[in-house]
Every structure is written in structure tokens, then in C-alpha cells.
């Protein structure tokens, strides 16, 4: 804004640094990281407290494990999506996006704290992943003692004891405490037969699942799982921090060498990104239901993450804009382009989601369909619609259809408030998407009344991450003032 005296509408690249690109004085964003830190500690504290209160085999503890995994995955997806945004800008030598890229770099820098935030997930791995404790257990043991219903491995074993206490329900304990999941008496009676464990079909299925799990041990075993987790976090911290650090160093150096380096780095970076995101998705989300598999799953997570990151970038820059910075550096032209990307990749997400659903539904293979069964029916015998059906339909309607109709118009993408509404909707639905990926794995043990714990965990984990990101923002210029392509971004206009 200091350049207002010049006739040019856009600030010049030579004097790009100034109060319009830095958080200074009374800018409310200067202290935002402290608030985020406080909220984060409070949120994570409350959820960990709740989880610890119940004791190791309680419903509360189990719910905490899932809540925390959900919160972690939402946050991780935004950070990883931002990494991809930066990589692709470097790879394509993009000029238009230079001013926007810094925001993504801040978000990507937060990857260095993700390893710390992962610790509670790691501690709860036995609660989360049915295969973790099932290791080396003989199939017969499970079939006779702990097995209930048709999906044992995919259900959970911590409730095996409770089962004995409430045989008349024929389902897992905890389920009787809340309405909505119960069938009528006749249904209960049918279940009773299942619960006694004498159904030969169930036992055969059980034996088959253990047989299968034994074949999956080469991937799903303790040491390999831990080793891979370490590797992912090393890769991500390396990617996020390099992309961030080299760029902010360029603010001072103002050299082309950094730009060339980052372009070369992004080639390797993209490969590392694709592989780590895919296999982390297999490890931490797919293996929640260890019998299930889908080759497109990594692409699905990628698409969701990238859309969520674009929505977050739009919302963060709009927030900064409100405080009076980045008025001329990130203009309606940039928002329009971000909006187009978000729109396009949201359609891509829907395409991937449809491909997976369509092929699994059409082929109807017993290994694959349970993924959708638990997101649609209350149980696998009676095919009664569950609450998850509403969530599944909401993803179709509000993650895809509504943003599609809303954001297709050029007019709306160029009205910042409306674009913000679209971005907020997409980000919210991305959170619902991750929720939908994780919580149905609780099956009958899912209790709507514990929703507060999920929200507390999400606010807590996301706030801790954003505390770091926002703190980075106070230390650096909000656009890459040393980037040689800055002039192109500052004068950029949509054709």
C-alpha cells in the first residue's frame, strides 16, 4: 500500500516488502497463535483426560482413540494437501500463484509438529486397529470365546467380556445404552442365535478372517508399522520444512538459485509425497478394517486432502485480508484461480469416490462391500439403514453436488465472501468425509452422545497445528518477496 502514489494498480515487485505483507502493529493475527495454542492445549487436554478417565477398556477410551485419529487425519490432510499445492507450483514454474504460495508454505511447515501430534494415535494403536492385538492368536480361540456377530476382526475385542453379561442383546455391550441401533424383539432373537457363537457360517468366516490376516502379516505387523510411521514423518517433515525454509530464505537472498533448486526438489518431492500419502492411508485408515482393500484409496485421500488444502488456503488468505494485509498482493484474480482449482479438484474427488463406490457395488465381492455396508446399514444381516446412510448421502449432496452447483459460476468465484462460503462448505464436508472414513469402524459401539469428544479432539489437534503455523506467519513476510516470479503474480489477471 506504500506504493499507492504510483499510478500502477498493483504494487511493484521491487518494493514488495512492507506493511501490507507483514503482520505488524495491532494486527489481530499477531496474537492468534497464542490463542490457538491455548485452545489446542485445552482441547487436547480435555480429550486425553476423557480418554484416560474411562480406563483402558472403556467405551470412552475407545472413543477417544477414534476421535483423536480423526482429528489427526483432518489436520494431516490439510498440511499434506498444501505440500502438494507447493510442489505443483514449482514443477509448473507457475507465476500466477507466487503470492498465494506462501500461505501454503506456512501450512506445510506445520508438518514438523505432526510427528508429535501422532503420539496419542500410536499409544492407542491396540484400541484402533483390530489386527494389532490379534497377532498370532489362534483362530479357534477367537471363534469360541470372543467372537460375536459376523465381523469379529473388523469389530472389536475389548468388548468381548461384556458380551457375556448381556447375551440377550446378541450384540456388543454399550449398544443397549442408546436408542436407534436396536431392532425389534424378533430381530433381537435372530441375533441371539448369532451371539451364541454356534452358527457354523460365522465360525467359518471367523476362521477365514484369521487365515487371511495371517497372510497380511508381512505388512500388518508391529515393527514394520512403527518403522513405516517413522519414515512417513521423516519424509513429511523434510518436505514441509524444506519447501518452507528455502522459500523464506529466498526473501532475503532474492536469488534464482533457490527457485531452480525448489523446482528440482519438487520432482523427488512429488514422488515421496505420493508414496507416503498412499501408504500412510493404508496403515492408518484402511487397516481400521483389516479385511478391506481398495487400490484407489490413496488417490481418494489425495483428492480430499488437496481440495481441503485449497479451501484452507482460501479461508486463511481471506482472513488475513480482513485484517488489512494482502489487499493488492492477492487479488480477486488469484481467488478466482484458487476457486477454479478447488472446484475442479472437488469434482475430481467426487469422480474418485464414485469410481470406488461404483466398482465395489457392481462387483459385490464379500471382501470389499463391508466398507460400504458399515456406512449404510446397521448390521450385515438385516440391512436396516443406519445413521451413516445420512452421512453418506450428505457427502454426495454437500461435498459434491452443492459446491458443484454453487461454485461453477465465475461470478461467485470472484465474489470473495461467496467464495469463502464455498470454501467453508467444502472444508466442512472434508472433515465429515474423514469422519465418515473413521467412525463407522466402531460399528454398533458408535454413540452419537459422544460427539463432543470428537469435536474437542478436532479443535484441540487442529489448534495446536495452527498455533505453529500462525506463529510462522508472524515471523515472515506473507508473500515470497524474494521470488523472481513475483512480478508476474502481482500483475496477474485471468484471461
Amino acid at each position: 500500500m506504500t506504493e499507492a502514489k504510483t499510478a500502477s494498480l498493483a504494487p511493484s515487485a521491487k518494493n514488495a516488502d512492507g506493511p501490507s505483507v507483514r503482520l505488524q502493529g495491532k494486527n489481530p493475527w499477531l496474537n492468534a497463535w497464542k490463542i490457538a495454542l491455548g485452545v489446542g492445549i485445552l482441547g487436547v487436554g480435555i480429550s486425553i483426560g476423557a480418554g484416560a478417565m474411562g480406563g483402558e477398556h472403556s467405551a470412552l477410551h475407545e472413543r477417544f482413540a477414534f476421535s483423536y485419529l480423526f482429528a489427526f487425519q483432518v489436520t494431516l490432510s490439510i498440511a499434506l494437501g498444501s505440500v502438494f499445492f507447493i510442489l505443483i507450483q514449482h514443477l509448473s514454474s507457475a507465476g500466477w500463484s507466487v503470492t498465494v504460495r506462501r500461505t501454503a508454505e506456512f501450512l506445510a511447515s506445520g508438518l514438523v509438529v505432526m510427528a508429535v501430534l501422532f503420539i496419542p494415535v500410536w499409544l492407542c494403536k491396540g484400541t484402533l486397529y483390530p489386527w494389532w492385538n490379534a497377532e498370532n492368536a489362534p483362530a479357534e480361540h477367537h471363534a469360541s470365546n470372543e467372537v460375536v456377530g459376523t465381523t469379529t476382526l473388523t469389530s472389536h475385542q475389548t468388548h468381548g467380556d461384556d458380551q457375556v453379561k448381556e447375551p440377550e442383546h446378541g450384540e456388543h455391550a454399550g449398544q443397549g445404552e442408546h436408542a436407534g441401533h436396536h431392532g425389534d424383539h424378533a430381530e433381537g432373537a435372530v441375533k441371539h442365535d448369532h451371539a451364541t457363537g454356534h452358527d457354523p457360517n460365522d465360525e467359518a468366516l471367523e476362521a477365514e478372517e484369521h487365515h487371511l490376516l495371517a497372510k497380511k502379516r508381512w505388512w500388518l505387523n508391529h515393527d514394520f508399522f512403527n518403522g513405516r510411521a517413522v519414515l512417513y514423518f521423516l519424509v513429511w517433515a523434510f518436505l514441509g520444512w524444506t519447501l518452507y525454509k528455502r522459500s523464506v530464505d529466498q526473501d532475503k537472498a532474492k536469488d534464482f538459485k533457490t527457485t531452480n533448486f525448489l523446482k528440482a526438489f519438487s520432482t523427488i518431492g512429488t514422488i515421496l509425497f505420493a508414496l507416503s500419502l498412499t501408504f500412510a492411508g493404508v496403515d492408518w485408515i484402511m487397516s481400521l478394517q483389516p479385511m478391506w482393500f481398495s487400490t484407489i484409496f490413496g488417490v481418494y485421500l489425495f483428492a480430499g486432502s488437496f481440495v481441503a488444502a485449497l479451501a484452507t488456503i482460501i479461508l486463511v488468505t481471506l482472513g488475513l485480508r480482513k485484517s488489512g494485509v494482502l489487499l493488492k498482493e492477492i487479488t480477486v484474480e488469484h481467488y478466482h484461480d484458487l476457486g477454479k482449482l478447488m472446484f475442479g479438484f472437488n469434482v475430481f474427488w467426487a469422480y474418485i469416490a464414485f469410481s470406488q463406490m461404483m466398482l465395489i457395488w457392481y462387483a459385490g465381492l464379500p471382501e470389499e462391500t463391508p466398507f460400504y455396508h458399515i456406512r449404510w446399514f446397521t448390521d450385515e444381516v438385516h440391512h436396516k439403514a443406519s445413521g451413516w446412510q445420512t452421512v453418506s448421502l450428505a457427502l454426495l449432496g454437500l461435498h459434491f453436488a452443492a459446491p458443484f452447483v454453487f461454485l461453477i459460476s465465475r461470478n461467485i468465484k470472484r465474489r470473495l465472501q461467496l467464495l469463502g462460503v464455498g470454501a467453508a462448505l467444502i472444508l466442512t464436508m472434508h472433515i465429515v468425509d474423514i469422519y465418515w472414513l473413521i467412525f463407522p469402524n466402531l460399528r454398533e459401539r458408535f454413540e452419537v452422545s459422544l460427539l463432543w469428544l470428537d469435536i474437542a479432539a478436532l479443535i484441540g489437534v487442529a489448534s495446536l497445528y495452527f498455533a505453529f503455523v500462525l506463529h510462522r506467519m508472524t515471523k515472515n513476510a506473507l508473500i515470497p518477496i524474494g521470488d523472481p516470479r513475483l512480478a508476474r503474480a502481482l500483475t496477474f489477471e485471468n484471461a
Partner: protein
Amino acid sequence: MGHAGTLISAVLFLFRQKWRTSINRFAEAMTIFAVMCALVFPGIHVGRVWMAYYMFPLPNQMSMWPNFKSPLIWDIFAVSTYATVSILFWFVGLIPDLATLRDRAKTKIRKTVYGALALGWRGANRHWQHYERAYMILAALSTPLVLSVHSVVSFDFATSVLPGWHTTIFPPYFVAGAVFSGFAMVMTLMLLTRAVYGVKSIVTMQHLELMNKIMLVTGSLVGYAYAIEFFIAFYSGNEYEQWVFMKNRATGPFAWAYWTMISCNVISPQLFWSKKLRTSIPVMFVVSILINIGMWFERFVIIATSLFRDFIPGSWGYFRPTYVDIATYAGTLGLFFTLFLLFLRWIPMIAVAEVKGVLPEADPHYHPEGSHDDHAHAPAAALAGGE
């Protein structure tokens, strides 16, 4: 093969990649001819060519309808939609060039034919405005088609329960593979045409290099898909999947085909990491041919290696093409090249009007030779695909 056309025309257009202008006409033409060749096959597959209209849901006295639950019928709709939009897109882009041909025509027949096809184009401002808008809308319409056609083709396989065919990554994997092989074919044909017709100053090394980069990216995406298929076959613990990937593909009677596919599609494009290699005409020519071969083998591997060992061991065998298979394949190649050579003969192979628009001279602030202000270089930067 038919995929590079829409990608270059529509997706690169929407991404403001102006370097596409010198290759888009070429790629679109290739697309249309490839789709024409593809549309021959459903006719053959019906079994009685004279009954080909059975593919369409036409009301008839026997109340016989195609099976709408079959991906094969979706294929008919997907490919014919794709063909329609591609032809429209191609033709709309051609109109200004057809007018140029009309204006320069020397014979009466040419004047009449080009004149009719140019639809009265005079290059007026209003014409250009309508033209730009129509082109934009067609580009937006084509973009979902880039995904839909090959996704539906992949459904032909993936909706089945056959190991090696049924896998959820097939739709995006087929799309990436189609773009990959399409670019390779454009490259092969372009290099030949470029040498014969001497358009080296229009299709520059920079264009070729960018195409090679796209091949590197899409080849790696295809490699990712191969790897994930293999991984999930083992992660799933499903012995049938493992059998297909290990015993039928990686080792076994068709291992030679499988490893040809991997070498050509995944390994050979990795040469393009080196700037020296991706700007070498002989290297890129050889690699583009290898990719064409590799992508042919990809379809061969998918189809033959999932079928040659049936569920019943008694029907196991080894696929050997008959003279009918070979002749059919040779026939499509013949059809393709006939159409393509006619195109080169009768229609501007490079989008004249579009290339004019991105030349440095087209810039109102252009100063020839010796001037170094920023404006003069802006179009050059745009050509470089920077924007």
C-alpha cells in the same frame, strides 16, 4: 490414443498453457481418427455387422433392448459422446483456418467447399467474440469427457469379478494411461511430420520437451497404478489376485509381455529426467515408439493374462492370435493412417489462427529487434508455458 486430443485441447486450454497451440490441431485430428477406429469394434463385437443398430436403444417390434446394466452399452454412449464433442471442438477451432483456406483457394471447387465449411467467417470482431466463447464452453464440456471415456472403458473390465480386472484404481489409471499413449502417438507422428513438412520453427524443441515432460508424469502415474495393484494383491491376502499378478503376469507364460509393458511404459520414460535426453530427437522418437508398444502391451497384458487361465483348469491355454486378429489390427492401423494422411493433405495441420495469436508480433507493444522492455517478452514467456 484418442486421449491426448481432448487433454491438449481442453485441459491445457483451461490451464492457459499457450504452448498447446502448435500441437492441438494435430492431436485433435489424431483423437477423432482414433475414436473412429475404436467405433469399428463394437460393430464387429455385435457379431452380425448388419445388426449393429442393436447397440442403440431403438424401439422395435420385438421389444428388444440393450442391457442397460452392461458397461458395454455405457461404452457406446461414452465413446459416441466423446466423438461428437471432439469433432465439434475440432471443427469450431478450424473455422478461422478454413476461412483462410477459402480466401487463398485457387480453384472453384476448393472455394466452394472451404467457403461452405467456413460458415461465412469474415474475421469480424463479433465473430471472434462468439468464437472465443464457443471454444471456451466446448473446452469446459470436453474436460469431464477426458475422465469419462476411459473410466467407462475401464468399467468394461473392472465391474467384473475377474482377478486382474476388478480393481478400483482402474478408472483413473486408464485415464492416465490413455493420456500417456496419446501423447506418445502425437510425438511419433509429430516428429515425422515435422521432419517432412519443415515446421520446426512452429513446433519447437520447447514444445517437444514439454510433451516429453507430460509423458514422464503420466508414465509415472501409470507406474504408480501398476505398483499399487501389485501391492494390494499382496496386502489383500487374496490368493487369486496374487496368482494373477505373480504367476500369470510377473512370472509365467506371459512374463515376456508383462516385462515388455513395464520396461516400455515405466522405465523408458524415466530417461526424460535428463534434459539432454528429453531434448534429443532420436531419443524421444525411440521412446515414443517404445511407449506406443508398451501401451499396446498393457491392454494385451490386462486382457490376455486374466483370461488365458480360466476358472476351469481344463480351459487353460496360451493365447495365440489368429490371422483374423492380426488382420483386424492391421486394418485399424490402415484406416487410421489413411484418415490421418488425408487430414495432412486437406486441412491446416497447425492451428494457424491460434499460432498467430501467440507470436511475439501479435503483441500490440511488440518492438522488433533490439528493444528490451518487459512487454516485448511477455508473449514469449507465455509461449514458454509460464503464465
